[in-house]
């Protein structure tokens, strides 16, 4: 396994009784990248993040975070020392205040950044004396983010970090993540259903469906590989032999996955009247990638 990778999994599996939540997930996230982790509800994103953090036991396969084995209890503790985490469950005990939680967390992280903690506490308008458990959903998300960002971590594992945040705070959060990567070389691996935000900051995308990796590639290469080819014929469109083709009257729409040139060439050979090749947005790529399991 490579030391250039912040996260690397091979055939990672997790079963809960008879249910396979993750079945053979293979990921490679380079250090210093911002990687969006996408998938429909129940695709296995949260379970994967919990396995990376040692909260959920691995059923099979192998995984390393920052070069450390996730299945080894001692190495898992070291992973958590060097990683900031925002989980899906952002509840805190009502018995502890924001200030107490900050004081508690700081003690475990030698690289804790008090300047960042104070900056985000003010920016996120978190009152130090407030009970952490009684904060609103959005405020709890802000607190969870603050606690992860101020750890001085080499890696941030974030499960829906902007869940419940207003657009302004979402934007602020996304910019904070970009700044951390630029200033400290932090790696960010985050799941989100807000694809516009993911497309805005991620340089790498991993899409999972039914616990399996569908795609894990640089965003630019991913977008370069996907094209929508619209072909208009004078009469009934001929069968081009592509599984991803959809017919609509005299128009044939074909999803190209790295084979746009081949599709165009074949369409011209079939006397297509017009050929239009368009790039896909991340949302379209995501919807196309997770369509297979749906049907």
């Amino acid at each position, binding site marked *: 396994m490579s030391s250039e990778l912040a996260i690397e999994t091979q055939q990672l599996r997790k079963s809960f009784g008879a249910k396979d939540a993750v079945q053979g997930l293979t990921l490679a996230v380079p250090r210093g990248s911002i990687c969006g982790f996408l998938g429909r509800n129940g695709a296995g994103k949260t379970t994967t993040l*919990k396995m990376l953090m040692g909260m959920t036991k691995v059923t099979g396969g192998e995984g390393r975070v920052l070069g450390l084995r996730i299945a080894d209890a001692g190495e898992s503790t070291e992973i958590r020392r060097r990683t900031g985490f925002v989980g899906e469950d952002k509840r805190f005990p009502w018995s502890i205040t924001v200030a107490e939680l900050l004081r508690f967390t700081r*003690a475990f992280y030698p690289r804790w950044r008090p300047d960042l903690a104070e900056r985000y506490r003010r920016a996120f308008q978190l009152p130090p004396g407030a009970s952490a458990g009684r904060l609103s959903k959005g405020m709890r998300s802000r607190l969870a983010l603050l606690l992860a960002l101020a750890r001085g971590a080499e890696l941030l594992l974030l499960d829906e970090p902007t869940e419940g945040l207003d657009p302004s705070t979402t934007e602020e959060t996304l910019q904070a993540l970009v700044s951390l990567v630029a200033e400290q070389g932090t790696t960010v691996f985050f799941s989100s259903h807000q694809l516009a935000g993911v497309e805005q900051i991620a340089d790498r995308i991993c899409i999972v469906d039914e616990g399996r990796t569908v795609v894990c590639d640089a965003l630019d290469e991913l977008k370069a590989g996907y094209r929508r080819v619209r072909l208009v014929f004078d009469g009934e469109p001929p069968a081009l032999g592509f599984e991803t083709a959809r017919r609509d009257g005299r128009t044939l729409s074909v999803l190209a996955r790295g084979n746009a040139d081949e599709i165009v060439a074949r369409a011209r050979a079939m006397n297509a009247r017009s050929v239009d090749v368009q790039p896909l947005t991340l949302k379209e790529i995501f919807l196309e990638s997770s369509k297979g399991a749906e049907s």
Partner: protein
Amino acid sequence: MSEADKMLWYKAWTETRWFFWPGMTFLAASGLALYAGYPDDYATRFPNGAIAVSAEQVRALLHDGRAYIWLSWFGTSLLLGLSFLALALASTGLVRSPDSGAAPGVTYALSMPVSRRRLAGVRMATGLLELAAAAIVSSVLVCALAPTQGQSFPFREGAAHVLLAVSGVSALYGLFVFLSATLGEVSKAVAGGALLFLYGTFTFLTSGVRRLSVFRLMTGDTYFLRGEVPWLGVVACVAVSAALMYASLRVVERRDF
């Protein structure tokens, strides 16, 4: 002790103090009430006997205030108060419900660079220390106030009774912690309370196994009546407590959150 260790203990304290303070206050108030309603005739206070002591024994015993303090405080109020406090403190564990898996804040705590064994171990130890503190402080209060009614309950004897009460409740606490680790929130409380009730009733009412009653050990009857500390019972309770808490740690270590 490192700063991180101090913070672990501090966090465990912040999460249990909301049960500790009311429990402690209740016990202290019960101790004060003992003297506020001091009876003219002790024997009328326990017409049906008390835990581990029959009505006949009560009538034979209650000829002085010392016996009244023992029966009222060590044999009843302290025993019941500590048992319920143990149940409440055990409910602050890492596992809250079978569905959501973790109690609020546990996902966050598990993201810290601390082993589960240490995390859960500190929480369990904090609960035990709080039980001991509640027993000691309230019993010292009871012993110290005895002279206000012209009575005496020596601190040395009080200390022996506290030892018995704490060793007994440690076994109950271990049982509640184990149930908390293996069952969900509602079922834990119901199962814990029901088990305790059944066990207590059976061992108290059945003469052949009365010596196995943890409640009987907690009353300290053998010490009060015969001056004998039941060391075997103390060791057994502490051993059971340790075994159940170790088993709970193993459950927590293996559990998916």
